[in-house]
């Protein structure tokens, strides 16, 4: 059980800054996950921790021992960090057992064999030791890659988009299984993904990255309900930003009424702000007098996602039960179920775009 600490880490490719002052801490036995669009620097961060990427400033420390600081790098083979690669990087010329045993050359042959067998059993492939990687399915290769990375008992395990090469149906079940294995081994782990379902299924702590910055490092619950940035509000889950104005230090005035809110620092009364409204904040209620026009709708099987128009022409999303089938152009009743509104300084960029994103999906 080890603690991974990253402080003020920066990486640049030439003039191009790929990571900017990243700070994060993973407690022993915890599973962390970096989430973000492609090109946000999450894989670079993982490779910097592994020692496969030179860093410009900042440090990576494992259990208080520095692995990296400017001008000093512990080579990857001395770090005691394991990694599962995106395309698994199994050695094609070695059998499954030889792959798993590759990092165990310091053990005696009999001990090595026992450890390899134990790991193959752990990942559910006890009888596949003599086969070659190309004879296995994608999911099986993934398990072998995991077993191989776990074999030398690394202090920290890194996983780079570990499920991206697999079928969609396989991903979530395997993600749960991998979480179970990591937890049972008490492994400290950090995973990279662009898929929030995987992140939420696997991780205790999730960090959202954008353009080389780690915007928020928090629990999945907090990322969804209390995002610190409009970008996170957009990236995690669905929702729209509507315009509001600050009333006093606890309330904002919007077209949906006066909402209790945590205001961003430095907000002045009367200032225009953006308020995050999730589809689950607005519930459909046939009995309600509060009626809004349906401008678009998407049938999702278990529910309908309606796009409704406010009197000011701003759009909001509303979730309703699957059998409440209302055509476009009609008005439906709604009620608000919002505990605390999330408020940002006025955002121009996200306002309409979010609504378009949602409607274009269908």
């Amino acid at each position, binding site marked *: 059980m080890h603690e991974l600490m990253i402080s003020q880490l920066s990486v640049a490719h030439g003039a191009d800054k790929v990571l900017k002052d990243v700070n994060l801490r993973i407690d022993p036995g915890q599973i962390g996950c970096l989430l973000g669009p492609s090109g946000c620097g999450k894989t670079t961060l993982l490779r910097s921790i592994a020692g496969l990427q030179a860093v410009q400033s900042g440090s990576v420390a494992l259990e208080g021992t520095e692995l990296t600081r400017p001008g000093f790098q512990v080579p990857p083979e001395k770090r005691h960090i394991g990694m599962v690669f995106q395309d698994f*990087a*199994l050695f094609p*010329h070695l059998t499954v057992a030889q792959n798993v045993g590759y990092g165990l050359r310091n053990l005696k042959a009999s001990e090595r064999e026992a450890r390899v067998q134990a790991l193959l059993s752990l990942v559910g492939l006890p009888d596949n030791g003599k086969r070659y990687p190309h004879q296995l399915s994608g999911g099986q290769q993934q398990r072998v890659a995991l077993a191989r990375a776990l074999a030398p008992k690394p202090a920290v395990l890194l996983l780079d988009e570990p499920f991206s090469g697999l079928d969609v149906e396989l991903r979530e079940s395997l993600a749960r299984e991998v979480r179970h294995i990591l937890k049972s081994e008490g492994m400290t782990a950090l995973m990279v993904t662009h898929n929030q379902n995987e992140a939420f299924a696997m991780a205790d702590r999730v960090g959202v990255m954008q353009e080389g910055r780690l915007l928020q490092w928090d629990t999945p619950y907090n990322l969804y309900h209390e995002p610190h940035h409009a970008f996170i509000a957009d990236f995690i889950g669905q929702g729209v930003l509507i315009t509001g104005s600050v009333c006093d230090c606890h309330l904002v005035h919007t077209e949906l009424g006066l909402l209790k809110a945590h205001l961003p620092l430095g907000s002045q009364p009367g200032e225009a702000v953006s308020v995050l409204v999730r589809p689950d904040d607005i519930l459909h209620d046939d009995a309600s007098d509060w009626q809004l026009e349906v401008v678009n709708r998407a049938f999702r099987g278990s529910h309908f996602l309606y796009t409704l128009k406010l009197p000011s022409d701003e759009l909001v999303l509303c979730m309703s039960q699957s059998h409440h089938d209302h055509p476009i152009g009609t008005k439906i009743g709604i009620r608000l179920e919002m505990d605390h509104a999330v408020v940002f300084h006025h955002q121009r960029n996200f306002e309409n775009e979010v609504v378009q994103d949602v409607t274009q999906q269908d």
Partner: protein
Amino acid sequence: MRFLRGLPGWGWLTLALIILMSTPLWVLFSFVFEPTNATWSHLSETLLPQYVANSIWLMLGVGVGTLLLGVPTAWFVSQYEFRGRQLFQWALLLPMAMPAYIIAYTYTGLLVFEGPVQSALREVVPLTMMRAFFPEIRSLGGAIVMFSLVLYPYVYLLSRAAFANHSQQAMDASRLLGAGPVRSFFQVALPMARPAIIAGLTLALMETLADFGTVEHFGVAAFTTGIYRTWTGFGDTVTTAHLSLLLLAFVLTLMAVELWSRRQARYFALSAPRPAAHLPRLRGRGAWLAVFWCSLPVVFGFLVPGGQLLYWAVATAETGLNAEFALLVWNSFYLALIAGLVVVALAVWMAYAKRLFPHPMVRGTTRVAMLGYAVPGTVLAVAVMIPFAWVDQQINAWVQTHFGVSVGLLLSGTLFALVFAYAFRFLSVALQTVDAGLQRIKPSMDESARMLGANATEILGRIHLPLLRTSLLTAFILVFVEVLKELPMTLILRPFDFNTLAVRAYEMAADERLADAGLPALLIVLTGILPVIYLSRLIGKSHA
């Protein structure tokens, strides 16, 4: 003939064409059943053991040589950043422009008793010591060095691609599992690149066995020189054919190894080749080693022999650049032009036959066409000569009895035989290029063009031709250059008194007038740089 069912007319035509084109090969194979004669028994007691032994020594020596030059350079260039890496990446291909027989001439000129190296050494070292210790370049060992210097690019090219493509992630994985860089290289990168390295090696060895000019000049008794002697000296068809078949057996074994290793390579490719964004920089001793090792083949495989050629060319320019030389250049270039056009046309035909009629019979026969490149020029020339001479005899006899005149050698005595042989030997070069180009044109493009109202002619003219243009040009240039530097087939099959650059260089060298070989040889090498430029651009693209 159930397997031929469903083959359309065009397919039949293709089939017939390929069978016709490969006649020489079938005729040659028919000699397996011919009993041996007195020349053969004489040969098998005297020279044959030498041919076999020399071939084996050549293959071993060139094998080691090309590996030593090709693999480390590929590793340095693909894995590390160091001063001159960009330059070396393509400069390491330059020796490909230097035909083995030409580099052999230059080193003979440099290292013989009267040459500049020995003359300079004699100033400081006593003559008796020189006699005892200075190696004779015109020897088996010399030939091995020459072949290694110009054939290692095959190993370099294929192993560089293997290292660059799939080793990076595996190397990272190995490092993170606690293996240092050296152990990672020997246990992961090298075994993973092994199929590619073996494929490159077999190509280099096939070229070694096919060579005629070098072993001839160095007086190394080899199959090709033996075949040439028995053919031109004894005029013994049966023994020539038997020697040819024996050499073919060596070549086919190599081909089988190559095929096997390519099949292995399929399993060895990881799914997503991702070039490392930033290669680690070599410093200090490591950087010096990389620069030294990469310079070695470039300097001795291209710069030194190229410099010698340039020196000879300048020295003989005044007397050598005359009308006769102009005729030589004209002959070579229009011959290469005709051959290039014929081969590209054939390649287009076959590539389309394969695409339009994916019938197993058509696929199988186009594969036969690919065999041509494996057949050594000397063997192919003899194999072409045998049936063509026979047909010519029949024609002459018929015309003689009916019209009382002689028409001469219509097939075997004209450029027809030569172009035919070139076409068979170099078809695979062109076919591979055209095939690759055609595969980029997805069938769905044809279908969508058709849905938009285009007919077959329009599809060809407005979609295929523009998309294929570069592939066709590339195929043409590759064949053009191959024909220009080809020696043994041209030597055996050329019409009487028809000279090319390669033949002139050979004749001058055979007369010990090495300096006079300089001008034609230099022109061949300069043209040979064209495909090198093309290849290096390909590499540049795959890195972008």
